[in-house]
């Protein structure tokens, strides 16, 4: 990758340099101050709403209606023995899903970014494909595949073994939740850590091998410690995300009474009768937020010494792919296995379901009922044009604004010298502890009150989603910036480049892999995000995810929901391929320029 240093001539007079530095500092302060204020507003308001609601008596009233302040919600939660069962389920589910997912994602990242694995472009696209399938669709797909009685995998295994009418697998279990969640989160984990694998300077590994260290020793004592910030960031981030995840626990756990915090919050905000109990829901959310704060503190302590992790320095480096030799066939087989479980089987069963007027397991007898009726119906669905347009707008706007904001906050956190430099980044990350539903409610109250006319438009969804995805952006870019030594920026500034020029022409090109990956991740997640969109959508700003939800959850139209899920998959695959093409094209241009 080329590092184009400032092409302008060095300032020749002290006066001009002084004026330039003054303007430079002013621009820096304005941009940084503006972004920091935006982050504080996006995060502080929902946080304030959360804390406020948790100390209000809200049985059958909303938090802002006439009611009293009380600690009864906290008493209810901490004195209820079911809360501790909730904690146990949540930790078991979270720990299992994160560990399993991270092992798979790390192996994947290493194979794709550090080795000579063949068919890389296709493999990369297939890793990201599960991202395009909303978690609830992955859950639905695995229900259709591993439901005790009608799951396709179970039917096949039972016919092979010749016995029973249930099992052997039961997807409605804690193990099922861990398995499906891990499959669903591997792509996101991969995006979060792959940049670190790609930018790892192999010089240290080569030096260790030349000194006689074996591969496992190199992995344990060189590679993993260098990757620690990225791996730790991913672990902490996804620990909080999985704990807050709703879709998979709802579909797979509720029918057997396996409750986790997220489903408890959802149920409290969606009562069968009466108004939601936001006080109780907010109390659960405050507990989740407290967990997030603890995890953030752990993360900060572990990554204090940033320079020791920097591997992209001013010295040139050329990462060489590791030759897998005969192991590449085993690696390929493992990847095919993952693709089968995460993409091929779920997509196949969703396509099958989309071709049926009502669901039946695959069989020869069902073949005559296959038709494209659901696709025709989707094409002619009233308002589909609006829905598709809204979905595209949401994904582009949310991803772009999120990356722009978190670029500034992450840079400030890593490079800023002032005492409060890391405050916007920390505040942005705290948003991870706020469930999307509570965040959305906060947005409703804000934009019903302040005279900014975005309530009821697609932009309130964009604003809420941007706030929701700030934590992801800040973690990815923070980890990426940690790997870029400050000497590169210092060299640019010493050559007369302004702060903005340095950011634009030095920092951003170096961060491009992480930026592109994170943009893709946010775009795909924004278009499939459900909780926030459900609460904020009105007529005219519906998106694909809300239509999928209402089709399945309210109307149980598995076929129609599967059809929309297939459309969403194709849309998201297209986004991923285009983004990779842009990145690969930029990569070729830079190589040609050198």
């Amino acid at each position: 990758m080329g590092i184009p240093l400032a092409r302008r001539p060095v300032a020749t007079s002290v006066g001009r340099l002084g004026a330039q530095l003054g303007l430079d500092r002013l621009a820096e302060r304005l941009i940084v101050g503006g972004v920091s204020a935006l982050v504080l507003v996006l995060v502080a308001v929902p946080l304030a709403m959360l804390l406020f609601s948790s100390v209000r008596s809200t049985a059958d009233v909303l938090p802002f209606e006439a009611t009293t302040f009380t600690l009864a919600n906290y008493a209810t939660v901490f004195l209820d023995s079911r809360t501790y069962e909730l904690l146990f389920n949540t930790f078991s589910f979270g720990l299992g899903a994160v560990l399993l997912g991270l092992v798979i994602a790390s192996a994947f990242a290493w194979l794709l970014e550090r080795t000579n694995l063949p068919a890389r472009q296709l493999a990369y696209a297939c890793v990201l494909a599960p991202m395009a399938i909303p978690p609830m669709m992955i859950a639905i797909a695995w229900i259709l595949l591993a439901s005790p009685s009608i799951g396709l995998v179970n039917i096949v295994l039972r016919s092979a073994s010749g016995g029973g009418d249930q099992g052997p697998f039961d997807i409605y279990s804690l193990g099922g939740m861990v398995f499906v969640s891990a499959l669903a989160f591997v792509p996101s984990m991969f995006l979060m850590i792959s940049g670190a694998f790609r930018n790892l300077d192999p010089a240290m590994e080569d030096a260790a091998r030349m000194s006689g260290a074996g591969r496992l020793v190199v992995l344990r004592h060189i590679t993993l410690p260098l990757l620690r910030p990225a791996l730790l960031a991913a672990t902490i981030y996804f620990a909080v995300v999985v704990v807050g995840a709703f879709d998979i626990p709802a579909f797979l756990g509720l029918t057997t009474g396996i409750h986790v915090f997220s489903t408890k919050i959802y149920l409290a905000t969606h009562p069968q009768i009466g108004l939601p109990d936001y006080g109780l829901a907010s109390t659960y959310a405050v507990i989740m937020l407290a967990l997030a704060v603890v995890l953030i503190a752990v993360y900060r302590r572990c990554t204090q010494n940033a320079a020791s992790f920097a591997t992209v320095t001013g010295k040139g480096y050329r990462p060489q792919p590791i030759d897998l030799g005969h192991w590449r066939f085993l690696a390929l087989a493992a990847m095919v296995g993952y693709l089968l479980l995460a993409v091929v089987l779920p997509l196949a069963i969703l396509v099958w379901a989309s071709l049926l007027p009502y669901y039946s397991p695959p069989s020869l007898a069902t073949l005559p009922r296959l038709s494209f009726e659901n696709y025709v119906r989707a094409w002619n669905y009233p308002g589909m044009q609006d829905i598709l347009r809204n979905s595209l707008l949401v994904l582009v706007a949310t991803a772009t604004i999120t990356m722009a904001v978190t670029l500034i906050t992450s840079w400030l956190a890593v490079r800023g010298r002032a005492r409060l430099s890391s405050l916007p980044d920390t505040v942005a990350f705290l948003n991870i502890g706020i469930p999307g539903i509570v965040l959305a409610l906060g947005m409703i109250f804000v934009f019903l009150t302040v005279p900014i006319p975005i309530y009821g438009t697609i932009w309130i969804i964009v604003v809420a989603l941007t706030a929701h995805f700030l934590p992801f952006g800040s973690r990815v870019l923070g980890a990426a910036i940690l790997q870029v030594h400050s000497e590169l920026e210092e060299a640019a500034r010493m050559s007369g480049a302004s702060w903005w020029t340095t950011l634009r022409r030095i920092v951003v090109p170096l961060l491009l892999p992480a930026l592109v990956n994170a943009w893709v991740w946010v775009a795909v997640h924004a278009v499939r995000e459900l909780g926030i969109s459900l609460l904020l959508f009105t007529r005219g700003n519906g998106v694909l995810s809300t239509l999928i939800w209402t089709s399945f959850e309210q109307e149980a139209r598995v076929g129609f929901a599967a059809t929309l899920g297939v459309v969403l998959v194709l849309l998201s695959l297209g986004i991923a391929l285009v983004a990779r093409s842009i990145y690969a094209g930029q990569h070729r241009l830079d190589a040609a320029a050198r």
Partner: protein
Amino acid sequence: MRHTLPILWMVLAVIVGGCSPPRSSTPVATGSAAADTPHLAQLYEAARQEGEVVFESAQNSETMQPLIERFTAKYPGIHVSYANRTPGETVERIVAEATTGRISIDGSSSSIRTVLPLADRNLMVAPDWKLLAPDLPAEARLLGDRFAAWYHLPNVLAYNTSLVRPDDLPKQWEDLLAPRWRGRKMVLDARGIGLEHLPFVWGKERAYDFVGRLKAQDPILVPRSAVSIERVAAGEAPLGAAVFPNVFEYQAKGAPIDWVRLPIYEASTFGLYATAGAPHPNAAQLWLAFLLSKEGRQIYEDTAYYSLMFPGTDSRMERALREGNVQLWFEDSEAVARQRAEGQKELERLLGGLR
């Protein structure tokens, strides 16, 4: 790469541009509004000045589309902005908007108990239903005339005809406690929907004992009955809760579904209301008048099988129940709705539910 982006944008433009246009297309005027009563004619003039009605309900857009098209053809100049949302979410939205004085929803459809928070906060208007819907029976006007019954929703038990012989079907509610229905052989609504009439019909003690023993049968619990019938049709369980219109819908799709003729089922009452303080009050009332008219109700029944089921209404569902010698228990007043809401919490607790 040079060609990828333009090609992609062209494909997206074809997709977005080619599928159904927004609902704001101008309908062809038919002039049938002239056949309305003087009150409705006057209402139409006022509504046309407003230009729009904002309505939400749990029905999907396809189901509402014929009604919207007929309304806009009959009353040109009034656009119907429709959103598919659960009644509870709509109620919550209205209450939240009311706290800031900026209500945006003109009206909605809901069950009686779901709309009680609005009634308690005086957020529903009481139109003169005799002028708006002269054909509407008196017993359909509820909550102090703030709520007009639009359709009844019987909650029945459906079964998969490929998995159960008619002779093996339960004949009484207590037959569900037989060993043949134990071990994930039934799909039930975890909220207790479908069982809520039992405390009223049998008394609380007997009803709650029955539900407790039903729970011991290890049924599959689902969030709502619509999910249940999908699972029954797929063959996951032979028997399951269902809303009656869905039985007809699945039969029309060719699914092996029929319904169990138990002696008595319950029917929720879903009705229409107009929001107090809404931005388009006249358009809202005109829209509700249309939905409650003979024409509107016939379109709704033809599209989605929903209808009022008072004895003698002779709707398709009412005939089916009559021919099956099945009695319906109605939720027919605010008092019953409140008692039912309280009872539903106990039923959900006994089933072990989703909460």
